[in-house]
């Protein structure tokens, strides 16, 4: 009854802020302000800037800048090199992600299953993550050397066909992919090890009593589904990092031979820093950003929906 009577009174009152609400809002903005400003300055601002730049005709150092509409995107659409780079990037991602994810998982499972030397193996497989890829590229260049390289030596000894891996248009991208896998494996392994550690031992014991006690059954019934969240995360991280492949391309092949290893980031670098076509490079960046956003969106959706067990 008291509620019913107070209702009209509340409705009759004009919508006025309660005393102190103003101060509260002010305090809120004041406290959140520095973070908001920094976020725009450091994260959102540059992104917006690049998107804006992609609709102009600016070249680096040019005195004037004009609105160009979608001209850069129209040019992209007709650019043979862009499509080649996109195809190469996708092929590179399709090659390195599954391989490094499953090898990383395999190594993590083996390390977890072993009794001894866990720390040693962990450190060994993690080494590529900590090492400088540029320096390691030198080693790989040597390993892939057509005559004295370790790869061809080994293949020749086994009686298998050899080639100049980094100079052959059919193999160059995958040779770079191998380096990418070698580097990504360690991080994936560490992430999977963390995921494996988080699986309660009880589940394996319950599974053993329920009849799932073989290695395969344990993996299918417990390990694999419990790794769901880790897997989504690892795949996304690896995919984004693979999309960003650049240093090995720049150092070992320079996009060649004949654009066979030209990838999005490398083309972006060339357009922006070699040819100084900043606006065109910005358009390329936007395409790249779109792919990364798509991956991140897919990850959050998957994590929210299926893989999250709460």
């Amino acid at each position: 009854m008291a509620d019913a009577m107070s209702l009209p009174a509340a409705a009759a009152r004009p919508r006025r802020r309660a005393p102190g609400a103003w101060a509260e809002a002010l305090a809120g903005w004041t406290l959140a302000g520095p973070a908001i400003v920094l976020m725009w300055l450091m994260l959102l601002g540059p992104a917006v800037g690049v998107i804006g730049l992609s609709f102009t005709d600016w070249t680096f150092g040019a005195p004037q800048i004009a609105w160009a509409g979608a001209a850069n995107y129209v040019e992209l659409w007709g650019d043979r090199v862009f499509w080649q780079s996109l195809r190469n990037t996708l092929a590179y991602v399709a090659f390195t992600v599954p391989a490094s994810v499953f090898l990383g998982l395999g190594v993590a499972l083996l390390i977890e299953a072993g009794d001894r030397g866990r720390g040693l193996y962990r450190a060994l497989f993690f080494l590529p993550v900590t090492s400088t890829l540029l320096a390691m590229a030198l080693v790989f260049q040597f390993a892939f050397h057509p005559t004295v390289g370790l790869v061809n030596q080994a293949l020749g000894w086994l009686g298998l066909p050899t080639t100049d891996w980094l100079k052959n248009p059919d193999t160059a991208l995958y040779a770079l992919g191998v380096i990418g896998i070698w580097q990504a494996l360690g991080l994936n392994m560490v992430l999977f090890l963390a995921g494996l550690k988080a699986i309660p031992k009880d589940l394996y014991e319950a599974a053993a009593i329920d009849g799932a006690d073989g290695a395969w059954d344990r993996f299918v019934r417990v390990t694999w589904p419990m790794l769901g969240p880790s897997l989504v995360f690892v795949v996304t991280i690896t995919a984004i990092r693979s999309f960003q492949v650049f240093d090995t391309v720049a150092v070992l092949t320079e996009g060649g031979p004949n654009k066979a290893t030209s990838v999005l980031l490398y083309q972006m670098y060339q357009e922006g820093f070699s040819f100084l076509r900043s606006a065109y490079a910005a358009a390329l960046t936007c395409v790249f950003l779109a792919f990364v956003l798509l991956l991140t969106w897919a990850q959050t959706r998957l994590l929210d929906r299926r893989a999250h067990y709460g």
Partner: protein
Amino acid sequence: MARLTLTGIRKSFGATAVLHDVALDIHDGEFVSLVGPSGCGKTTLLRIVAGLDHADQGRIAIGDTVVDALPPKARDIAMVFQSYALYPYMTVRQNLALPLVMRRLSRAQRLPLLGRWWPGAGARRAAIDAEVQRVAAPLGLAPLLDRRPAQLSGGQRQRVALGRAMVRQPQVFLMDEPLSNLDAKLRVATRTEIAQLHRRLEATFVYVTHDQVEAMTMSDRVALMMDGRVLQFAPPQHIYDDPADLRVAQFIGTPQINTLPATRDEGGLTVAGRHWPLALPPEAGARPQLAVRPEWWTVQPAGTPQARPGVVEGTLAHQELLGAETLLHVRVDSVAETVVARVDPAQARTLALGAPVSLATARVLAFDAAGHRVPQAEWMGVRRLAVAHG
């Protein structure tokens, strides 16, 4: 349904021995609790029965089968874990079905997607589903079958864990503190349900708990464990009335049994400065220990003739009113802890804090200095029958 026999079970983790020569003979269809303080080895013993751990020595037989070398799945047991150990990525239906799926479907029939169309899979899956329904209904899980464990309350998860154990109709149910994650009210309700479940299934239950109330209320027999040994294996009432060891007497019963140090004197014992005409056999030693349950005491009004032979005197230190009864805490010289008596609230109201109180008992348990029970102590000069049951 089967008898479960454990003989000479020993187990060490590294240098720490956790089980010393444990032997239990659990009857077909019996409900046995393994109870004891943390670290007494009760969970390890259960895990050894389940096959999740292996004993260093000893033999386990379920029915006529020695199961020491068998993996858990071949032992015809089911286990309810303290954490429930439900598969979080499966629905309740899939959780309940898994033990049957693993047993009845071939590897090919279990394949995801493909397995459904494998010859014979359909009929078997339908049979499994029917059994899942049959188990789910009495547990109240029927409307929850398509939910995931994360969407269930603690009590509901606990039922799913029970259901998963029941679905296969094992010979022996093993339960590892299954109620410890429930709130107090639900725990009491579930206690009753598990006891009823046991009667309905007529299977052998082995139930691990540190809670003496659970052990006392549910079990046919209680195995009280301490420091890796079974101190006593007997029905609950027997454990309470006739403990074999002082530690058993102290573990079972709330408030804890009163322990009184005694020395021998002319014609009996001296207890807290008073003469008790109690005859103890020689094996009780020179410094026996006496134990008296709080409800065995009566308060003697000052100046009345001594109604019961064992008397302690002290001052009232504290009263705890529990409604149906009151606990008197009486400080007695030369007894380390206060002596607790469970008395009628009306009588307790007449006593003031700090007032002298005289407690008397005719019933007493006697132990030697090491805590081993000394057979039937007898009062001298008092009629035997009146004494024995206080």
